[in-house]
């Protein structure tokens, strides 16, 4: 347990080293991983696991998934991306996808924040009320 906590602390320090302007630098992250593997410490795998978890969390927090029932127009995509960037910062990666099962509307997920305006969500809420 103590080594696990220590590994988490080490991973957190390494993760902070990888941040440039509060954004994760991919090259630094790769270098850190290579250095940890090269060091061959006893708890290298624990440190790398904790580091990977932090990287995944950061990627999730800086990734916006925009799902819509019908393809969005370029203007709407640009406007949505601009709104998300102004809210979550410039390092946000936005991905757009079409899902006809949503019936209508758009669903945006950034990290743990969800903006769901789809007809499917409305119908699900309506079904729950019955």
């Amino acid at each position, binding site marked *: 347990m103590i080594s696990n906590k220590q590994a988490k602390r080490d991973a957190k320090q390494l993760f902070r080293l990888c941040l440039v302007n509060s954004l994760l630098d991919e090259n630094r992250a790769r270098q850190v991983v290579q250095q940890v593997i090269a060091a061959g410490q006893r708890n290298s795998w624990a440190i790398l696991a904790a580091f990977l978890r932090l990287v995944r969390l950061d990627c999730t927090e800086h990734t916006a998934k925009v799902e819509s029932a019908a393809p969005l127009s370029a203007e709407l995509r640009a*406007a949505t991306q601009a*709104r998300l960037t102004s809210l979550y910062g410039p390092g946000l990666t936005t991905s757009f996808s079409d899902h006809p099962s949503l019936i209508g509307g758009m669903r945006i997920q950034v990290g743990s924040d969800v903006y769901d*305006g789809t*007809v499917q969500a409305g119908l699900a809420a*309506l*079904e729950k009320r*019955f």
Partner: protein
Amino acid sequence: MTGDDCANMTAFYAFIQAAPQNGGGQVAEIARTFGVDWTHLGAQIISFGIVCLVLYKFAYRRVLAMLEERRQQIAQGLANAEKIKVELDRIEAQRQEVMAHAYAQAAKSVDEGHAAGARVLEQETRKAAAAAEQIMVKAHEAAALDHDRMLAELKREVGRLVVQATARVTGKILTPEDHRRLAEETAKQVVM
């Protein structure tokens, strides 16, 4: 000694007492006719008297005492019989009283039994009525729960069908303009 013998002896003594009045010769004649020996007769009378005295002294008194004792025993027996009769009457009366008391007690017990039976019957009837009432209440509650459950299931089913139908219909009737408008409304939710 029979009654005839007593009558003969009485006549004989009356003749002897009447003899001096009629003259000694006539008596002597009669005595001679019957073969009476005065000496012998006197000796017999004396011996008879002695025998009578002895018998009176040693037999008759004892017999009398025995008879008295028997009489007393008989009297005692009669008295005892009378006592026994009285006792029997008393016992009979007591028995009658006891029987009457027993009859009364039995009648009272029967009445009490009837009353207790009536009470038990009433209690059991009341219990049965309460149990029936409770069963009815539980049945009503169960029916109400079933009704509510079925209503909820029906509501859910109706909701599911409504949602399913709405989803099918909505997907067909939404125009590109509707899609755009819906997407813009969602995008407007993303604000600082």
